[in-house]
């Protein structure tokens, strides 16, 4: 079914980003209205898609496509939205809309450029998710790197700039490997369309298949931040303003996971990973990465760094559970992607707000934060409870299904890693919660020092707006926890697609 709405998901953010500098020349205050309008349009398109194609989704034949330039699938670029993309795309619209609202009260300086890059990231994420063309995917991946790197350096101090440099080095190398992979696919098959590549991948000779898989693996593992390549991640995710950390850690990593899934389940086909015995190796790599993420988080004395390490832990877990290639695995993985997106975004946003009261991100400065703003701190605690997997929050249910998936195929190591992960999460979160509730007495000079040494981003205006956004995320984890079956329909459809990629090929090339 050809639908222009999926194109608009990509174009609207780009247009907003292009308009902001022009509008800035005229009147800087109008910018915020434009930004909000852009977010509203984006989220309403997502809602429109869900509502108007709900019957299709129910019938199990949800499939939207768009031919750019009017050129049909194998020869032009086409955009595709199936159930998996629908989940990711609408989640991104949702999360980013609220991060935008949060940013309005949070970002103090250089707002114009911030929003430009922010909307470009939004467009690039939607593009990377919706595109059905391999090279186009590469362009969007690079766009993601180029847009997110300046935002990593947004605070413009030594720490942030170093983080950005590290981020860029890893990002560019990863992108380069991805480029080589795409070119190898093209030289072998002679096409760039994902469906056509998927159709013909089996015909390539064996050694070449392995080479292609290796090159793509390097590129994508760097981007996802799996153990031997995770070094850029904690630094980058902790150096930027919290709204950005929420975006990078909460949302962007999932986009790369999506790309991994799309590539290795639909384009390349998982049976090749099994054939070359790479799958089980990758499962263990991802699990070790997860374990390392949690272990590193234990020692982090910087709260944002701790959260970033915890992201490594969770992403490794999700990747491992996907690589099991079972139905329960997909279900648990997809559910945990949803839950981790909501939890991590919320956590970073609330942390960002709480850090306004402190001099630095260090744990010692975190003392007494819980008394400064009780409401937000309770939200923070609820989010961490979800993170460690307490009912009735959604974290419990996704953890349940992930362990279930591991145990169903008797993969005890994986299940133990997940359990240990959540156990160590209790340790490192409790450390900060206890610190936050510590009573501190400030002398007058301390207080003065405290106030004058606050970071530059200390913006207390629009407190209500920021608080509301955080509570929306808290509400979401509770709501989805009670009714995580709401996602049953798209999740089941998505699982069907991942198990049977032939369907995707037929829909694009045959329809």
């Amino acid at each position, binding site marked *: 079914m050809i639908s222009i709405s999926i194109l608009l998901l990509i174009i609207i953010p780009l247009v907003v980003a292009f308009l902001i500098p022009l509008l800035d020349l005229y009147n800087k205050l109008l910018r915020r209205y434009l930004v909000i309008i852009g977010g509203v349009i984006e989220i309403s398109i997502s809602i429109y898609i869900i509502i108007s194609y709900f019957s299709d989704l129910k019938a199990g034949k949800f499939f939207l496509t768009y031919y750019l330039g009017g050129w049909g699938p194998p020869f032009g670029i086409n955009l595709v939205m199936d159930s998996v993309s629908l989940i990711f795309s609408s989640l991104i619209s949702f999360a980013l809309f609220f991060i935008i609202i949060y940013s309005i009260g949070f970002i103090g300086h250089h707002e114009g450029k911030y929003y430009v890059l922010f909307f470009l990231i939004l467009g690039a994420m939607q593009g990377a998710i919706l595109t059905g063309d391999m*090279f186009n995917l590469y*362009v969007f991946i*690079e766009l993601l*790197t*180029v847009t997110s*790197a*300046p935002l990593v*350096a947004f605070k*413009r*101090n*030594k*720490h942030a*700039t*170093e*983080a*950005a*440099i*590290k981020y*860029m*080095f890893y*990002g*560019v*190398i990863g*992108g*380069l490997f991805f*480029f*080589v992979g*795409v*070119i190898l696919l*093209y*030289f072998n098959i002679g096409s*760039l369309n994902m469906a056509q590549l998927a159709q013909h991948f089996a015909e390539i000779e064996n050694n070449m298949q392995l080479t292609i898989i290796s090159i793509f693996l390097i590129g994508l593992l760097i981007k996802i931040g799996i153990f031997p390549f995770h070094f850029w991640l904690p*630094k980058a995710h902790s150096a930027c303003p919290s709204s950005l950390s929420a975006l990078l850690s909460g949302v962007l990593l999932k986009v790369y996971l999506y790309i991994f899934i799309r590539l290795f389940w639909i384009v390349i086909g998982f049976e090749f990973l099994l054939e070359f015995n790479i799958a089980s190796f990758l499962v263990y790599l991802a699990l070790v990465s997860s374990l390392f993420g949690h272990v590193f988080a234990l020692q982090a004395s910087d709260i944002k760094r701790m959260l970033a390490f915890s992201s490594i832990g969770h992403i490794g877990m999700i990747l491992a559970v996907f690589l099991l290639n079972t139905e329960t695995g997909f279900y648990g993985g997809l559910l945990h992607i949803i839950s981790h997106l909501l939890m991590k975004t919320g956590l970073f946003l609330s942390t960002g707000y709480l850090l306004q009261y402190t001099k630095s991100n260090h744990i010692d400065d975190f003392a007494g934060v819980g008394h400064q703003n009780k409401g937000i701190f309770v939200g923070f605690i609820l989010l961490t409870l979800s993170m460690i997997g307490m009912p009735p929050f959604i974290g419990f249910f996704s953890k349940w299904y992930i362990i279930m998936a591991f145990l169903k195929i008797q993969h005890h190591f994986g299940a133990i890693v997940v359990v240990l992960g959540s156990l160590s999460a209790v340790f490192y979160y409790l450390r900060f919660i206890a610190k936050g509730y510590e009573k501190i007495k400030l002398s007058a000079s301390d207080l003065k020092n405290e106030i004058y040494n606050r970071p530059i981003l200390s913006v207390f205006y629009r407190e209500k707006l920021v608080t509301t956004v955080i509570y929306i995320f808290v509400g979401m984890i509770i709501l989805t926890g009670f009714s995580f079956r709401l996602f049953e329909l798209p999740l089941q459809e998505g699982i069907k697609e991942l198990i049977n990629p032939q369907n995707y090929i037929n829909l694009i090339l045959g329809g």
Partner: protein
Amino acid sequence: MLHHLVFTVLFLLGLYTVIYKNNLIKMVIGLNIMEIAVFFWVIAVSDTGKSVPIYHLNKFAASFNDPVPQALTLTGIIIGASTTALLLTFIIELNKFADTIDSNKLEGLNE
């Protein structure tokens, strides 16, 4: 075979520079060498000894080299240029804060 060899040597040279040189600018140069190795390789492999993929006004050539890798490389070059510019910007900025571009002296890069 030769272009594979050249690609390998250039690519690894670049990778070596990125990893084992301490000067950040040199590391960026290494990155560029890697990129250029890839672009060179793409063009070299796609060159099958036929004509440039441009129709001349009067003579319509019978066979062309594959135009797609060329288009892709063009895109790749521009993206590479953008990333390089951005990296250099960061290094300028870092030099301002740390007064050095030696990655050994920048402890923050290690953590």
